[in-house]
């Protein structure tokens, strides 16, 4: 563990000859995978390999603080094997195809632990905003469809790796929490993302 800390420290301490980030705008485009947690996982337990995120950050106040806007799209999907579902005296048997689209639109605040002079820039952040969910359950020739807007939070952590003055490799993970509504249960997702952060001009 000690060695790991030393390696991380050396990476973060490694500097580049970059310009300051203050006032800079970054777009981050990432491939995103996701895993449902809690009741979301009970509904669809498979890892979701379909997804992406688009994120805009502007460094304000200092080279370490960024605010921005973030959009994600993750599609959870699972084919359930033939089963019987019972509610009260009624039972229904069939094969279910379940899908859940989760689309958060969030305002974000990120704090970076190292500035643009460093090869590695770890960061943590929080997103707040609406989350749109689209749930489909196909059974037999019928479809149950539920579209809902939730209020959501998204704590996140990640790291940028220096590629050149305007481009970074971005790795991040987010916990998307969409609060329950009067009609729909809460949704919880853990995402793992990889992509590029770049100055778009």
């Amino acid at each position: 563990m000690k060695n790991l800390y030393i390696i991380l420290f050396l990476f973060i301490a490694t500097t580049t000859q970059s310009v300051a980030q203050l006032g800079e705008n970054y777009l981050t485009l990432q491939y995103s995978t996701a895993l449902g947690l809690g009741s979301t996982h009970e509904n669809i337990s498979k890892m979701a390999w379909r997804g992406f995120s688009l994120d805009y950050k502007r460094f304000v106040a200092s080279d370490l603080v960024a605010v921005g806007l973030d959009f994600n799209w993750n599609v959870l999907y699972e084919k359930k094997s033939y089963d019987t579902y019972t509610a009260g005296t009624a039972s229904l048997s069939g094969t279910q195809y379940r899908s859940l689209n989760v689309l958060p639109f969030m305002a974000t605040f990120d704090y970076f632990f190292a500035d643009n002079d460093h090869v590695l820039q770890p960061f943590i952040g929080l997103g707040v905003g609406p989350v749109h969910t689209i749930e489909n359950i196909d059974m037999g020739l019928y479809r149950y469809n539920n579209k809902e807007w939730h209020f959501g939070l998204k704590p996140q952590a990640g790291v940028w790796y220096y590629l050149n003055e305007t481009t970074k490799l971005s790795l991040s993970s987010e916990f998307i929490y969409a609060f329950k509504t009067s009609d729909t249960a809460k949704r919880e997702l853990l995402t793992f993302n990889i992509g590029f952060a770049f100055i778009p001009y």
Partner: protein
Amino acid sequence: MKKNHFKIIFWFSAFLLLCGCYPQENGYVNEYDLVATNYDKEFNFSANKTYALPDSIVLIGDQTLTGEPIFVDQATATLILNQIRTNLNNYGWTETDSLNAAIVLLPSAFKNTNVYYYYDWSYWGWYYPGYYPGYGWGYPGYGYPYPVATSYQTGTLFMQMTYKAGIEASSVPVVWTGVINGLLNSGGSSSVNSRITSTINQAFTQSPYLK
């Protein structure tokens, strides 16, 4: 350097767009079969285990209300009735005539044709003079594309257990219902027969209170 990073971003964006599609999986025809059952929880099935079955199965349609009923073809009806009979007998029920039976089980069936309207410009666009991708098709009087139609047929089998002693002036109590729904025009008749058999079995398997 910037040129390079835009190239990377372009191809990465294209990859992400492909990732964003809705999942779709084509299943086997039996994966579209549904079996639903419901029952009256106040009813004592174990004390009323004699039943009667008709010889034919009514096919519900417009003419059912206006004229003579029509029936499911006799071979299919016999298959359905025998399968119901086998399951009830396995649960310890005894078949008798309709006058002496506690339960009269009434099967009926319903067929429905669903029509999809589907249109793809690429069918004609390769030939049509002056066609460019993205052009619409003006059909006189409609203002939207003339559709190509395709259809599928679904079938539903209802099995209703009626309790004779509970009949009142205006109602017949239904103490158990089994509903089976699926595609009809996919696969041969042996495939359809096999699915009828297995779904009727499932209706009884998920109704253990009938034992």
